[in-house]
């Protein structure tokens, strides 16, 4: 008996969509190239200028420090929130309520203007002697104000993300750890958090990318991050659009790098969870490239007599 050839489903709609997209893309590319008001030469001129690169550095540094503050404080807040102590859990609840309930821009401006409220910051016994005192304007530099504003706000969000992650871990894990004589904090650090990471990382990656862009708010407190640097140039030269394009391109590059980083971190914490590791981007690229002319391995064309085809 002759094997019957099975014909896979055709998808003419896909080809049609691709054609439409290509036409639209061509029109867009044409606009980009032919419209002189984009001033691509100016974009090229400033893309790697010192001011812009310094701004990029500041943006990265700010994102890193603010996220570090946010993650560390957020995890602590989440652990407090879930602690059996009603005191700790209420403190954590109040913190999240306050910092999530007011806009981050308002918090930034508030920290920057802290001197108006407390001209001096001092450490000492309440109503008693003072050990240490500093003028607020000297202590709260634009950078400190930015870290306080962004980091403390971020902690409130990371606390909720971490709480969701911690609660996603099976109760049996806690019992097993306790039965082995592990104490609460050790259990949290060694058993719960590593498993919670799988749930925490994707939204935390989102938060990091969000933070990278939110740092542009900091231009309001005259901190020379990327947007402020671009503004400082175009306020002088009036080349507003090209400089905003420069800033946007840099933001895109940075978020792309973060996206790739997130993928590898997720892969690391997925250990012991997925039966096989998902391929890295490089592995996928290589596989697609080298199997370009033969059918890809995960979708073998099945034929009726073949028994090996459909089984993976």
């Amino acid at each position: 008996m002759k094997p019957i050839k099975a014909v896979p489903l055709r998808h003419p709609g896909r080809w049609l969509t691709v054609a439409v997209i290509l036409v639209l893309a061509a029109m867009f590319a044409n606009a980009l190239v032919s419209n002189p008001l984009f001033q691509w030469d100016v974009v090229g001129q400033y893309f790697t200028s010192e001011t812009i690169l310094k701004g990029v550095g500041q943006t990265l540094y700010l994102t890193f420090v603010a996220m570090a503050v946010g993650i560390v404080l957020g995890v602590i807040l989440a652990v407090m929130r879930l602690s059996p102590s009603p005191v700790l859990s209420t403190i954590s609840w109040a913190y999240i309520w306050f910092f999530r309930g007011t806009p981050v821009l308002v918090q930034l401006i508030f920290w920057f203007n802290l001197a108006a409220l407390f001209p001096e910051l001092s450490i000492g016994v309440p109503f008693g002697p003072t050990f240490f005192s500093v003028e607020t304007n000297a202590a709260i530099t634009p950078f400190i104000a930015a870290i306080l504003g962004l980091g403390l706000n971020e902690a409130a969000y990371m606390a909720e993300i971490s709480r969701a992650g911690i609660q996603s871990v099976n109760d049996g894990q806690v019992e097993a750890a306790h039965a082995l004589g592990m104490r609460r904090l050790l259990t949290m650090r060694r058993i719960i958090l590593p498993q919670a990471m799988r749930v925490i990382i994707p939204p935390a990656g989102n938060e990091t990318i969000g933070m990278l862009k939110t740092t542009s708010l900091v231009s309001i407190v005259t901190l020379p991050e990327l947007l402020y640097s671009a503004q400082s140039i175009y306020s002088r030269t009036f080349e507003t659009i090209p400089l905003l394009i420069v800033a946007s391109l840099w933001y895109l590059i940075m978020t792309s790098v973060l996206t790739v980083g997130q993928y590898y971190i997720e892969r690391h914490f997925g250990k012991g969870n997925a039966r096989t590791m998902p391929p890295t981007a490089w592995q996928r690229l290589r596989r697609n490239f080298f199997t370009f002319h033969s059918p890809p391995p995960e979708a073998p064309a099945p034929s009726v007599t073949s028994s090996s085809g459909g089984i993976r």
Partner: protein
Amino acid sequence: MTAPMVTSEQVHKSFGHLQVLNGIELEVATGEVFCLVGPSGSGKSTFLRCINHLERIDAGRLSVDGELIGYREHGGKLYELHEKDVARKRQEIGMVFQSFNLFPHMTALANIMEAPIRVKRESAAVVRERAERLLDRVGLSHKADVYPNRLSGGQQQRVAIARALAMEPKLMLFDEPTSALDPELVGEVLDVMRQLADDGMTMIVVTHEMGFAREVGDNLVFMDGGVIIESGHPRDVLANPQHERTRAFLSKVLM
């Protein structure tokens, strides 16, 4: 006559209005295999969990190796212990769960090594050597570097037993260790437990495996509704139950 490993006097426990343990009185001798059987909801698992203070008792006295569990007695009252002291006491009591509860982010060997290193602060080299020996004892030397999700249920439960043994406990608690297993995997876990009993480990086993209880058990208690209905040598209780409720239960579980 050696001192009992576990003593329970008038242990009471309730969840809200539901009284789950209603005056449990029993003694488990050192080196004996003590089986707890009964219908679901009879309080047998809850009682087992009280023995390492995973559940708090409301009244009564429960002690392991002469020391009260979870409480300190002073002036005729019981005061709950600090977490640190509860944890220290738990190091002496191994527990095996129905759902294995291996740590999924660690290999089989790392699962076994975790607590001795982190809790008892023993050196990694010493612990590794002991962990490898234990894996060998449960027949899984070749699975040392495998993550739990690549192990069958029976293999996971054997690793879980090795993990509990790595803390060198005086007492082992088994909470329906074979109930979550496919029938053909039950035997391998029971074999490990049988071997452990032969080595003289004191074991309290909540189980539905009447064959195991009859063959390995030194003592059997039948519980229902939070009280002990009857107790004795497994062969006697299983072959010749005195109470109607015991008979009714056994007629349902025995083939």
